[in-house]
């Protein structure tokens, strides 16, 4: 293996420090026995974790966020994968226009998307805020699913599908038995990325929230604006733990290189 230069090692180290140290502060403060969000923590206890998981607005928002992230991820994949196939393998005219359409939410400010949805769907069409949120989240996830599965499809040999057809598979059968399995790592990475993006989204969720349906990041944001207790640090630590477990599971099942390389070789 090539030895990295000392400068690169130092920069990488500094990078990790800048990213991880503030997170460690949050984690440490979550274990405090005191009543204030301070560092160093006063004493050691799990009481703020207890408080976090029994604080009804948080638990309700957590369920809402998971619901929203899960459904919008499924929708984004359900629309994004066929769209990617059509853009890259199909013979539709004006491919680049369609591609641009699917990728455009990536460059539009999310607040603008949120506001537009608010005016059109909630005010004019009187749609409830969960459905409007689903539309908004699906729209911002689509570019990720199209990009990531597209990268994976670009690396796959187009002759694979021809080979399946030649051996007797209908177009549909070849899609299920060859195209989809070959794209699987790309689809899984698109799903993870989408789920996390939706779960963490603030701008759209902030604009489209209502009393009965609120996402966790928005609820936590509201909470910190009014209170300054370690319960937020505890909730953040739980989310962090959840993310680590998810990432670890993904790594065990597929390996990061394959997820983010996105190709089944």
């Amino acid at each position, binding site marked *: 293996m090539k030895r990295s230069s000392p400068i690169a090692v130092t920069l990488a180290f500094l990078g990790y420090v800048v990213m991880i140290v503030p997170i460690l502060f949050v984690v440490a403060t979550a274990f405090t026995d005191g009543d204030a969000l301070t560092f160093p923590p006063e004493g050691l206890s799990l009481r703020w974790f207890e408080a976090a998981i029994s604080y009804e607005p948080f638990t309700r928002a957590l369920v809402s966020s998971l619901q929203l992230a899960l459904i919008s991820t499924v929708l984004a994949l359900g629309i994004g994968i066929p769209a990617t196939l059509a853009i890259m393998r199909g013979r539709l005219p004006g491919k680049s226009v369609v591609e641009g359409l699917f990728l455009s939410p990536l460059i539009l400010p999310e607040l603008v998307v949120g506001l537009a949805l608010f005016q059109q769907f909630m005010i004019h069409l009187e749609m409830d805020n969960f459905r409007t949120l689903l539309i908004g989240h699906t729209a911002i996830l689509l570019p990720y699913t199209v990009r990531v599965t597209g990268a994976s499809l670009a690396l796959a*040999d187009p*002759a*694979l599908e*021809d*080979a*399946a*057809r*030649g*051996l*007797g*598979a*209908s177009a549909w*059968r070849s899609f299920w*038995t*060859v195209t989809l*399995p*070959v794209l*699987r790592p790309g689809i899984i990475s698109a799903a993870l990325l989408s789920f996390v993006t939706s779960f963490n989204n603030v701008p759209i969720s902030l604009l489209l929230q209502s009393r009965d349906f609120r996402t966790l990041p928005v609820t936590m944001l509201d909470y910190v604006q009014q209170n300054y207790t370690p319960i937020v640090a505890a909730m953040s630590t739980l989310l962090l733990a959840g993310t680590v477990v998810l990432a670890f599971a993904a790594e065990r099942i597929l390996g990061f290189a394959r997820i983010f390389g996105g190709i*089944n*070789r």
Partner: protein
Amino acid sequence: MTTAAEFVAVSRHFGDFTAVDGLDLTIREGELTTLLGPSGCGKTTSLRMLAGYLAPSEGQIWIGGEDVTRTPPEKRGLGMVFQSYALFPHMSVADNVGYGLKLRKVPRAERARRVAEALELVGLGHLADRRPKALSGGQQQRVALARAIVIRPRLLLLDEPLSNLDARLRVQMREEIRRIQAEAGLTVVLVTHDQEEALEMSDRMVVMNGGRVMQEGPPDELFPAPANRFVAEFLGYENFLELPGRGLVTVRPELLELRGEHLEAAGHGTAPATAVPATVTSIAYRGVELRVALDAVDATGATVPLIASVRRDAIDSRDLPALLPGGRVTVGADPGHLVRLSA
């Protein structure tokens, strides 16, 4: 001789570009037919139309006495080996080979037997459980071959099957493919740009250029009698010149005779009726042979480059000075060795 497949006036356009231009071609049952031609001449396009991946812009394709022009690939019952092999990366070697049988709903036990048989035929019985990526290029190709023949295809189509292999393996696989063809009794259409491969492997070869057939026939008939300059050049002929009363002719380098003063005196053959004056431009030694490059003046007065291949021991040492660059000699050939070309 039964007809296995037929192209009837088939053309294929891509926009303004015509990749295949009025192709008429008969593939005979049990034979190995090669489509030979330079890159871009329409070989792959023709093969893909035969397989059903590409629709002809005009004309019809017949397979086994049936018009299949509008039949999708999965209903044509052909086996194809792609240039990239196109093995399914998420399946084992055995599952790759068994894919077509599974689609045909062949029962599990029979499927396993036929997969094992096909892998034996290509000499890979011991690798059935591997993933394709764990195989060498040569082995991957054999898997692709096994996958294509296990379904007992009406035709086996091979697109440049040997071009990704190293030189030694390539020569070895030529015989291997012939052996498999004979053992499985297959009709094969093979695409290649390698004339040596085509000459060695084909029962019939079809030389293509610019989307058209230039000439077709068995190698032993086609090679000694190329129809035109393109075919001759593609088969490796090098000497082209106009001779009075004979039109454009070509002669193989080893059949060209050089005459200096002493060569003639030494009585090498009779004076050819078709001699032209020439000047030596360069000489290269190749083992016992001497390759002499010359500029000759042909019947039209044009200067044409010629290559003569001469055995060193056939040269009188007194003639050697004439065989230096700038030396003046006479070039000729036995009229029986001249091949007339149409253009």
